[in-house]
């Protein structure tokens, strides 16, 4: 299983040289598995470049949306395979009361926000509610659960041949909970992340910033580290960087994270996610 990060930023894209090191595109992660299947986690602006890279060779694609906040769907309209008549794309997303996934996405892919309507997509596109029980796509077992964030939001775990990636880009498990001591049965997302080969997890704020953003659905560095520690993930990539954090600030946050992680007695590799980075699991 190869995991490639095409967008690691949260909230809004950040163009410009000050953020070029970690990258400015919003959430998008490509997971390529042994049977050649391409699974794409979220459709932030990072999915545009991914689409350009795979449009000619990958015709059967699955896009797994965690939720429908704009930074996770903004790239959909610019994803080249959706305009390829020979492509077949399944879009999975969280169920919500009252409106089908296609209808909810059509609020974005429609006038006046878009020059095209969702029915104009040339590919054979289907929209599916993500199951609440494990299911398979090719050789991959997928599991999804609702996690603590504003609105219906999923985390995912993809497993192939004993290797697994857990993806929780927007997650605030520490809201009202002490992650250091809580019974893990009561920690949002714990089952998805437990013992994962790679945990990709929200770390939008440093600890000082978090105080002003409590309840917004994202994690502080302290909570991201505590969640990773409790999950016993074998590798950790901190993700969904705040748009206000330039490279210098993220470098400093990364150093702080590494020191605190090591001080906590963990030797699993931990780093701040970078656009373009790949992991072989």
């Amino acid at each position, binding site marked *: 299983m190869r995991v490639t990060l095409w967008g690691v930023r949260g909230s809004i894209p950040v163009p410009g040289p000050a953020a070029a090191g970690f990258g400015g595109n919003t959430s998008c992660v490509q997971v390529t598995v042994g049977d050649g299947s391409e699974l794409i986690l979220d459709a932030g602006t990072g999915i545009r470049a991914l689409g350009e890279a795979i449009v000619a060779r990958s015709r059967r694609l699955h896009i797994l949306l965690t939720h429908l906040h704009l930074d996770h769907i903004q790239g959909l309209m610019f994803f080249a395979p959706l305009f390829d008549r020979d492509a077949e794309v399944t879009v999975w997303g*969280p*169920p*919500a*009361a009252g409106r089908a996934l296609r209808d909810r996405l059509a609020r974005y892919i429609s006038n006046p926000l878009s020059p095209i309507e969702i029915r104009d997509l040339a590919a054979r596109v289907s929209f599916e*509610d993500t199951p*609440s029980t494990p299911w398979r796509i090719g050789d991959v077992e997928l599991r999804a*659960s*609702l*996690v*603590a964030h504003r609105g*219906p939001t999923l985390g995912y775990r993809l497993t192939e041949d004993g290797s697994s990636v857990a993806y929780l880009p927007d997650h605030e498990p520490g*809201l*009202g*909970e002490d992650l250091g001591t809580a*019974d*893990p*049965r*009561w*920690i*949002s997302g*714990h*089952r998805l992340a*437990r*013992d994962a080969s790679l945990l990709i997890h929200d770390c939008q704020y440093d600890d000082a910033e978090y105080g002003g953003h409590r309840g917004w659905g994202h994690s502080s560095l302290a909570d991201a580290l505590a969640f990773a520690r*409790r*999950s*016993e993930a074998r590798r950790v990539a901190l993700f969904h960087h705040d748009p206000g954090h330039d490279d210098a600030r993220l470098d400093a946050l990364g150093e702080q994270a590494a020191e605190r992680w090591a001080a906590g007695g963990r030797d699993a590799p931990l780093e701040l996610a970078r656009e373009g980075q790949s992991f072989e699991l």
Partner: protein
Amino acid sequence: MPPPDEINDADERPLELILARNLVSIISLAAFLVDVDGDIVFFNEAAAQVIGARFEETGSLTREQWNPEFGPFDEHGRPVPYDELPLTIAVREGRPAYGRFHIRTDSGSLIEIEAGAFPLTGPDGYHGAMVMFWPLSTDGEG
């Protein structure tokens, strides 16, 4: 608490219950959470003051444990099976409900309470209920 590798899927709480517990744990109104089986999986400090036992001491209580011990009971002190309680029936049907009944405190006294219950229903169905209650009589006056 069990280490991570000893937790199975059946133990994992659904998010609806996790978020409800976050709320219940910080409010001053007596409240508890039941899961889909009717087991009490959490009650708060205010509830502990009414019944006379703390969650940290009791842990989760199965229906078989709490039903005969704490109640509910009718006005004559006869046990009311949890499944037959109008409030239980309503909540399982997905409706908020209100009810009055008696419970037995840790000291053995019966007290009358009012309770409001809210089903915790997610996209994949019913996960349990949040029950808020307040005593109409004090210990020994029930």
